[in-house]
């Protein structure tokens, strides 16, 4: 297992370097000039001299290889540069927003798993009955409802039924857990629904598959109590693919957060990214994209390791 972990960790390094290079080229080499886009947005009349001066200020007048060298040297020191808008270091801007986004992402995942495992199991056990159909309709709609619209529906329901709105502003969970949860639970629910839907579908189909296995039939033939078969044999094996969903859905989780934080006015990574994009703050965009991609790679790594730990056939092959 240790060798497997080391091998997987080493494989991450080239991908990370590749991602860093890709982000650099995406932003500088794509057709379109970032400075022109930033200054001449909305058809503003800006002279060519001003554009040149701005380019110089940002260090974009240097040859590409020099820019690339600066960027890579910075990365080697874990320095993502300074925000073009606030002048604050990008590291700091990101660090400030990580806790709230992380908390919402974690809560959404917990909600998803708590919903998906029982619902998927019930759906599989009562296959082709009205319970199963109901669960499947719920799951299919989860894939179609945009998380930000679900968030708006939640706000609307809270307002129309209770005339109450979650407060704006984030309080740390340790300071005031109730105030914290009253803010974070709603975005977590709206992002978690899609997550739960995908996981429920996965749970259902993998449980159905496991129930057809020989060892389940053997257990039944031995006269093992159905509930024990489920707990000891079926559920444990059916959980494997559900773990994969966590990795696969992480990308959608980030996507959901980016939009949903805007709906609930939560000052997290997603909102920072949207603000950076609308302001054309390219250093911040660069840093954020790198950060999100790194997170994404590591979540997938953890899922792979978890999978290998749960299923020895993978690490031994």
């Amino acid at each position: 297992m240790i060798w497997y972990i080391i091998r997987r960790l080493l494989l991450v390094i080239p991908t990370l370097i590749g991602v860093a290079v890709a982000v650099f080229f995406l932003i500088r080499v794509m057709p379109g000039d970032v400075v022109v886009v930033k200054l001449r947005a909305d058809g503003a009349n800006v002279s060519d001299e001003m554009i040149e001066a701005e380019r110089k200020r940002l260090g974009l007048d240097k040859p590409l290889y020099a820019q690339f060298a600066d960027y890579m040297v910075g990365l080697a020191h874990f320095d993502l540069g300074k925000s073009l808008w606030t002048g604050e270091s990008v590291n700091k801007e990101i660090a400030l927003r990580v806790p709230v986004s992380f908390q919402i992402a974690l809560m959404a995942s917990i909600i998803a798993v708590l919903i998906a495992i029982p619902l998927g199991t019930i759906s599989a056990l009562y296959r082709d009955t009205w319970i199963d159909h109901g669960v499947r309709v719920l799951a299919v709609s989860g894939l179609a409802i945009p998380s930000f619209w679900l968030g708006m529906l939640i706000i609307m329901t809270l307002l129309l039924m209770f005339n109450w709105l979650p407060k704006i502003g984030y309080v740390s969970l340790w300071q005031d857990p109730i105030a914290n949860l009253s803010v974070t639970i709603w975005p977590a629910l709206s992002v978690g629904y899609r997550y739960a839907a995908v996981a429920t579908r996965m749970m259902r189909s993998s449980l159905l598959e496991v129930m057809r296995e020989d060892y389940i039939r053997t257990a039944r033939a031995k006269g093992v109590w159905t509930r024990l078969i489920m707990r000891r044999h079926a559920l444990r094996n059916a959980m494997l693919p559900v773990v994969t969903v966590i990795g696969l859905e992480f990308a959608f989780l980030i996507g959901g957060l980016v939009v949903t934080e805007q709906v609930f006015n939560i000052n997290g990574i997603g909102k920072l990214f949207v603000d950076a994009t609308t302001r054309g703050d390219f250093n911040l965009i660069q840093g954020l994209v790198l950060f999100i991609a790194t997170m994404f790679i590591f979540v997938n790594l953890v899922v792979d390791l978890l999978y290998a730990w749960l299923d020895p056939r993978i690490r031994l092959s």
Partner: protein
Amino acid sequence: MATVASTPSADTLPKRANPLWQFVKVQPLGVIGFLIILVYAACAIGAGWIAPYDPEEIDFAAMLGAPSAQHFFGTDQYGRDVFSRIVYGSRTALAVGILSAVFGCTVGAFIGAASGYFGGRIDNFIQRIVDIMLSFPIIVLAMVVVAVLGKRQALGIDWNLIAAIALPIIPKMARVARSSTLSIVAMPFIDAARAAGFSHKRIIMRHILPNIVAPYLIMVTAFMAQAILLEASLSFLGLGVTEPTPAWGLMLSGTSADFYQTAPWMILFPGLAITLAVFAFNLFGDSLRDWLDPKLKS
């Protein structure tokens, strides 16, 4: 004189099932999805006849009006008819959704086919790039492209927005096309084509690409749903379609807490339009997948 065995007449041969009818019988849900898509397509094409009002016409006398016989889905804060805006919005949604899915999948299919066909170093190189592109969540990649490229309007469509949505689709399609190509390259008819001295271009164009049409169609419909969702999200964030063009995501953008209470229809109907469209494409895509490729089902 030997009797010549007469060929069986047409009515003794088993009738060949009509593939369209087969699809309808086996995949009723897919048909429902397809019918919903047709309704949207009709709205997009015939928006001028279906919509009772000009979607951009401002009427302060009818501000924030509730749904009524004149305005089926009510009016927004500028007195614009929500129903007409949704009907016209299907133009944006379908145009961006279909074009970006087709564009992304087509480029991806060519890259994937080339990668699988040539193999070796070329394959390795392309696959590393695909790996890297897959490390970015879709919306993140799309937002970067939007930020860098800005807008490029032509024929009433923002082509840079389409490029932004198509780019994240390319590596996903390239993956699928590559694995399909690998199984085709192992077939004897490819050896035969090589032995006949056909050029690489001809083998790819005439022998490989026609054989990956099934996964291509499956991916295109699957990504249409995602592209519509992504366009709505980007427009909602103010990074996609901009005012006054009617687009579903844009209609939800900038709705403050006041509207939640006084004009919930402004939020309800555009969201329903997005959800139903994505639902229909998903339903149709799933059925198409089950029907074209039973192996994928498991």
